[in-house]
């Protein structure tokens, strides 16, 4: 129900044009983009079927989070924690990927 209302608002009112959406505090205070910046805009584009535009707004969301969510959903649905979440390599990889993505997306090296 709340999800449906949220999706309707997100579909109808573009986050780039209206100020009533929550703002990323990091982006607000520093002007830099955080690893999660672009998620709202990407969801808006996705709801309109613009997959490519959504991908450009936050590629990591698509390459990292969505496959992970799909991969671990069966475990979570059964009330269990997927085993890889407790593996040292996985947790350190999350740290490295997130921080390097955070840095790179604020440099001219970032391709999008």
């Amino acid at each position, binding site marked *: 129900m709340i999800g449906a209302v949220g999706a309707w608002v997100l579909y109808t009112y573009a986050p780039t044009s209206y100020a009533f959406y929550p703002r990323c505090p990091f982006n607000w205070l520093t002007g830099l983009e955080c690893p*999660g910046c672009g998620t709202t805009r990407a969801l808006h584009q996705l709801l309109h079927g613009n997959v490519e535009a959504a991908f450009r707004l936050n590629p990591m969301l698509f390459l990292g989070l969505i496959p992970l969510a799909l991969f671990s959903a069966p475990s979570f649905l059964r009330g269990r924690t997927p085993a890889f979440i407790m*593996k040292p390599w996985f947790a350190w990889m*999350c*740290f490295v990927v997130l921080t390097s993505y955070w840095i790179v997306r604020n440099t001219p090296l970032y391709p999008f």
Partner: protein
Amino acid sequence: MNCPNCGTNNLDNASVCVNCGRSLMGGAAQSYTPPPPPSYGTPGGGEYGGGPAAPGTVPNYLVQSIIVTLCCCLPLGVVAIIFSAQVNSKLAAGDIAGARDASQKAKMFAWIGFGLGIVAMIIWFAMSGTAVLQGIRDAQANR
């Protein structure tokens, strides 16, 4: 994990005990079944009795930390992720006390990050109150 019924050591992803057939499903509840009697002479076991902790008995808050990092955008989320990763490393190394310590810190930083994120968002909405109202008006005008 060890079967709560007969104590047989099963694979972590086993759904039933290979020895007695008892269901091993039940997620979190499984982790908090009463521990076996403490092995004598093990120092400082605390509430867990000092027995070997199965993976999953010390929560690492990794998912929460990542959500805080992505949604509240605060570097504190990254600090929480570092402690989450330490929980995993220390568990893998058998350092249960250290893992529990890192787990507490991961939880603490994730909550502080979450709280500061909420506070920042309230300040943002308060400061941009007129802009928000204007945005709602624009939205109604453009329907």
